[in-house]
């Protein structure tokens, strides 16, 4: 079997998480153990191939949660049970789920999806886990029910105040961070992760964030997902990066590399 060739696999279940986010459950055979934070390259044969974080894995099923933001994600979100997609991976470096004992997971929108996967593995290994779930408004909150089912305390923030704390997830983090956490994992908009990292650095709490960039190969060959100025590749060195490394990536929250390689200020 060729690692970097899409394998055609079947969708066996589907779930709507929010107005924008859909989870597809996919049947896989002899699949490697995915580390939460890793991603797969998903090919919708009628459209494109995009990177998506794995949000769950059990036996012969993996789940991917898709934020409907463009033509390919639209097509993926409207696929039905029985239809197929192409899959290759898993790729990248996942989260460190060993070094801490009291984890706070901070996610926004669909960024919560790899964190949900991380929290289920953390709970299985007996770690303490709390979660901040953030979104622009209550319609865009997702995975609260997954967290509750796992018995995880969740703190909600919405930017428009329609539910929970009114403000950004990074602000809510500042209010609760003195709750004894020793490791924070984060996934969401770059300014949020940058702020949460600053909070953790100040309090000497371990921190990891999951980044995303436009990707092509997904395995460290084309360079499309390079972060300036460090030259880290999101697909190979990441998508998970620790706080110290994130601090050196001055482009985070400031500029990004576009599809054609040009650097654009955000």
């Amino acid at each position, binding site marked *: 079997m*060729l*690692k*970097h*060739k*899409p394998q*055609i696999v079947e969708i066996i279940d589907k779930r709507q998480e929010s107005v924008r986010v859909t989870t597809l459950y996919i049947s896989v055979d002899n699949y490697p153990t995915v580390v939460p934070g890793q991603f797969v*390259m998903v*090919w919708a*044969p009628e*459209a*494109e*191939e*995009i990177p998506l974080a794995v949000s769950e894995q059990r036996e012969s099923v993996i789940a991917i949660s898709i934020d409907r933001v463009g033509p390919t994600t639209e097509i993926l979100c409207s696929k039905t049970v029985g239809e*197929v997609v*192409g899959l290759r991976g898993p790729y990248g470096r996942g989260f460190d789920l060993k070094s801490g004992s009291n984890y706070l997971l901070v996610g926004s929108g669909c960024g919560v999806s790899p964190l949900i996967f991380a929290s289920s593995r953390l709970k299985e290994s007996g770690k303490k886990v709390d979660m901040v779930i953030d979104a622009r408004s209550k319609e865009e909150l997702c995975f609260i029910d997954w967290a509750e089912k796992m018995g995880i305390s969740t703190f909600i923030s919405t930017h428009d105040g329609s539910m929970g704390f009114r403000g950004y997830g990074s602000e809510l983090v500042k209010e609760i961070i003195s709750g004894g956490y020793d490791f924070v994992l984060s996934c969401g908009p770059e300014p949020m992760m940058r702020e949460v990292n600053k909070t953790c650095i100040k309090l000497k709490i371990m921190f990891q964030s999951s980044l995303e960039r436009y*990707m*092509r*190969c997904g*395995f*460290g*060959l*084309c*360079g*499309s997902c*390079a*972060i*300036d*100025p*460090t*030259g880290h*590749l999101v697909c190979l060195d990441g998508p998970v990066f620790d706080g110290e490394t994130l601090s050196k990536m001055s482009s985070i929250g400031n500029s990004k*590399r*576009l*599809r*054609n*390689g*040009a*650097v654009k200020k955000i």
Partner: protein
Amino acid sequence: MEQSRRSDGASPQTAVQLCGIEFPNPFILASGVLGIAGSVIRRVADAGAGGAVTKTVSYEPREGYDNPVVVEVDGGFLNAVGIPNPGFRHFRDEIVTAKLGGIPVIASAMAKNPEEFAMVAAALEDYGANAIELNVSCPHVDRMGDQVGQDSSLLKDVVQAVTSKVGIPVWVKLTPNVSSIVEEGIVCEESGADALVAINTLKAMTIDVDTFKPILSNRFGGLSGPAIRTVAVRCVYELYENVSIPVIGVGGVTDWRAAVEFFLAGAQAVQVGTSIAYSGLDIFNDLNVGLQSFIRKKGFSSTSDIVGLAHKR
């Protein structure tokens, strides 16, 4: 032996001089691999590469093709990335950053006519490139790439226009998708090229048997990796016999033995691209260590001692 493990990859034995440029070792990063960002080229330099060719830069910005653009096949990869790049006017910073890596940076250029080629090349020289590599050989771009390489008259005009415009060396990357790569090479030499790079990818495709669809969104792409090595070695061998300018080999350099095949065939240096997918950036250190061992074991004293030895009868 300690000297060979230095991460800067410099070794008096394996250093080569090509077109007046000093390369600390003969292993150069190939175009299209990692070289879209200067910051990544610096990492490649730190990993021990002797030089680096940038991503191909074109006259106009290009978005590239939709994914899938890369797929693994038996013995290599197909790619039809589509030469995404910000256009030559927006590439200065990448070259300036890349040069901080301390190794020669060769800028790859592509355009559709001699005038545009000359403008792109002149700008890249201005940004600080040590040499220009003309992409007249990509098999999957419309009206450019190998459609230039396959047209002798256009190829001649392009090479002449560029060499008369820039002062730095001009290399031409040849396509194997022609009936005679030797003819292609001779045209380039006669038009003033300073070196030939052989080979670019082979035009190819792969079809998914479950969905009946070609996997690459562009349907056709270029085959690279070990699967093309014997074709590349043959091309280098033939070119070495027929031109007197240096030949640089590329195509499936996965380890030091593959590299030595190219040197014996007549290459003065080799480029490494696809093999990074198999071995990561550690490959440069492995290549350097392996070549040094080989040179020593065979009783030679430098890379240039073994160039072309396969031609001796």
